[in-house]
């Protein structure tokens, strides 16, 4: 029914994949190379899918298929984040034609800031935990009928919407020098959420409680201002602006908060 895109052209795509069977088996860490048939409009996911169908390395060794995380394949769920040619991004929107137009080797690795599960899969649970920490929600009274929410200008909506597109994909924290397992830093995405919820009229009712979650260790002052986050964010969220806003609000709270107690 759909266009036949399965016909190859003889062209091959060359992948070099960093693999490891399990976090407790560092000795299994290795690079494996694969060459798979090129398909029109191919992305890294379809290249990995080809490997899945025929898991044989360039040396002719039969291996277990590479494992990775994916879901929507249209860069809206955040699942398939990995490091491709040294840059953290989603594998679904990494098009072979753009990365390796002349058949160059493409290097694929798991993210480094999270515990490894296997091959390209890591566990990003820390991000979800930090969303609890910073109270990333609106405190509604319940889901029963209470009429519409507060009115909002189209301009305010257009400022809020881009901030709300964060997929918790992990690109920003992967690129952040301050985010690692020896710090508590909540990371750019979480600070952006603080700003997002503090902007909403009902969310602003709990602005201070939210700010206080990022005023201590691991909070906004841990940002080293490298500005790497905004460079890698696939949704082009103005993370640096968000951090600056939260930082200003936190400072104000720190200086004058006692007056209000």
């Amino acid at each position, binding site marked *: 029914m759909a266009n036949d895109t399965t016909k190859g052209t003889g062209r091959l795509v060359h992948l070099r994949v960093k693999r490891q*069977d399990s976090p407790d088996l560092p000795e299994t860490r290795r690079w494996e190379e694969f060459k798979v048939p090129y398909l029109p409009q191919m992305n890294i996911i379809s290249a990995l899918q080809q490997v899945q169908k025929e898991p044989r390395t360039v040396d002719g060794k039969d291996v277990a298929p590479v494992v990775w995380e994916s879901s929507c394949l249209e860069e809206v*769920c955040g699942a398939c984040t990995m490091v491709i040619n040294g840059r953290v991004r989603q594998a679904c929107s990494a098009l072979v034609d753009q990365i390796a137009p002349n058949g160059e080797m493409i290097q694929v690795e798991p993210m480094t800031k999270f515990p490894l599960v296997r*091959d390209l899969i890591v566990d990003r649970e820390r991000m979800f935990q930090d969303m609890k920490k910073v109270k990333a929600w609106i405190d509604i009274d319940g889901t029963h009928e209470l009429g519409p929410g507060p009115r909002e200008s189209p301009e305010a909506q257009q400022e809020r919407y881009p901030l709300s597109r964060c997929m918790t994909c992990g690109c920003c924290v992967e690129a952040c020098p301050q985010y690692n397992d020896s710090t508590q830093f909540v990371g750019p995405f979480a600070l952006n959420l603080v700003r997002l919820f503090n902007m909403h009229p009902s969310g602003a009712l709990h602005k201070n409680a939210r700010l206080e979650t990022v005023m201590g260790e691991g909070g906004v002052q841990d940002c080293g201002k490298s500005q790497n986050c905004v460079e890698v964010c696939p949704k082009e969220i103005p993370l640096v602006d968000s951090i600056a806003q939260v930082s200003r609000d936190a400072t104000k709270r720190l200086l004058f908060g006692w007056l209000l107690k």
Partner: protein
Amino acid sequence: MAAKSTIRSEGGKVRRVIVVGGGLAGLMTVIKLCEAKVPVDLISLVPVKRSHSVCAQGGINASVNTKGEGDSPQIHLEETAYGGDFLANQPPVKGMAEAAPGIVFMLDRMGVPFNRTPEGLLDFRRFGGTLFHRTAFAGATTGQQLLYALDEQVRRYEIADVVDEHGVSIPGEKMVRKFEFWDYLQAVLDDNGTCVGCIAQDLKTMQIKYFQGDAVVLATGGCGIIFGRSTMSVICTGTAASSAYQQGAVYANGEFIQVHPTAIPGADKLRLISESARGEGGRVWVPKDAKDQRSPKEIPEKERDYILERMYPGYGNLVPRDIASRAIFKTCFHEKRGVFNPKTGRNENEVYLDLTHKDEKFLRSKLAGILEIYEKFAGTDPYHNPMKVFPAVHYSMGGLWVDFEKDARGSLKAGSPRNHATSIPGLYAVGEVEYQYHGANRLGANSLLSCIYGGMVTGPSVASYQKSLAKSAFDLPKSTFEKAEKRCQDDYERILKQNQDAKDAENPYKLHQELGDMMLRDVTIERDNATLEQVLGKISEFDERVKKVASPDGSQRANQGAQFVRHLENMLVLARVIAQGAKNRDESRGAHYKPAFPKRNDPDWMRTTLAKHEQKGAVKYLREFDYTCAGQSVHVTDAVDASLVAPRERKYEQAGAASAAATGKIQQPAASEQQKSV
């Protein structure tokens, strides 16, 4: 007699229910359960924020009528029934249409960044199958925004304590416990066949474990991956629904698979271009001259064939999806008038979806996210070049059969334990995995609504069911659960070990591709009985070949290969239900179209297809059955409850045909009300 406490079992354990699936339907069910003070274990294949609901782009329907058009929930009901070609039972649809404005307001209060009018009110856009502006939207990622809002609310319950009858917090017990990266395997049934929990597998450690639950709610989504590539996420294999079906749950209207008219062809996925592109003015066309080699911008207006506007002047580009898909298919496939490609020298299976006549700033504010997908994945700028699209499998209207109880007004009876109950007592289903709201064809922007409304109904329904139980699942002997767990463990070992040394072992991914290619080619837009006969033969062949599959991976950790073998086995079972249902239904209705039977046939086929699993390779189609809900026996027939909107022929050629209000005619309810269940 009901148990003493709904919070603790006799043995003192906290009584929980299980929700499987963390998309909109699952999360809304969780929230409603928590509000009813029922603690929940939430099991999900992926972190819930990555569920397929994120892919919904265009919006959510609610007849708020802020544009002064005279829209109302009654018209929403009529148009949904009409768009679904009168296969949906109408009381649940009425309940949904009436609840819709309240649902959108609730989401608004949760902070969803819906687009606004200059006055600061919610903005609404047009979608298919209606002439009203009824669709609220948040940029071009409405599903994502709605999912995030519910995800955030569920996170609040992850840190909320379970509180007993005296208002005392129970140490260490939280209202919601999440189990993400867990694959649902089976329901645990007690000796009476009542669902008392489930078995799931941790996809990191591959540990198989039982979960006790006073009820289990499946909110596991659609089954598009049976068709290979579709607009669905890779996780939408229908494995949980298939498993429940194989355990005895009735599957309804499986043959109704929605094909969306506009998607971008791709090697790994067919990416949707939302209907909102047409809602905001997008036009579908092909050159009048089939061999026209000019770039689309050079082809003057009068040399373009705007196929939908020509064929359906009443609704134009906003005819329902089944109709638009067939029109595009006819143009490309039968008339060979798809866009000509000078490189290949042939007419491709593609038509233009054109927004270039609209102002770029307008497009950026209304459709940026959608057009960004095209730009990213097709590599062309859709602001200045017409997009090239073709239909793709998009939504399963069919799914697990679920019950409903209606009230005196003909709507859903609030809190009835029958609402959303499957035919297995204690097992519920909600969202795309069930069949209830869309009939033979779903209208655009009704899916997000049906998921959330379904969740709002299922939560209270399950809470009532739990109250009716004389004995909690947590007081049953451990052996009930351990037996089921052992069965799943053995089955997993079988998958790991079978055919490992066989020379002619099958590869599960390749077998899936063959299945998908066939289903896509033969069981989608046009269906033919002789072809379907061959498809069924092929499925039998696949049933044999799948026995020869060897797991491509033997690892004890994150073994996606073995997991996929299991999903493939389950996909094959549902593929048969879909294909056999399509073959049986000798008529054309909604998404189901047979050129040999081009008309809808109400006397013979205005009925729900009810499929029951016999054994592997055999489906029994029922006209009626009995099931037990909360101790009551319920008789179910396949008659459609059309008590609210009288069936009539669909005619989208004519403006206002979908609802009486728009044409000024008053629609009388059917004289004799058809009872679905007694």
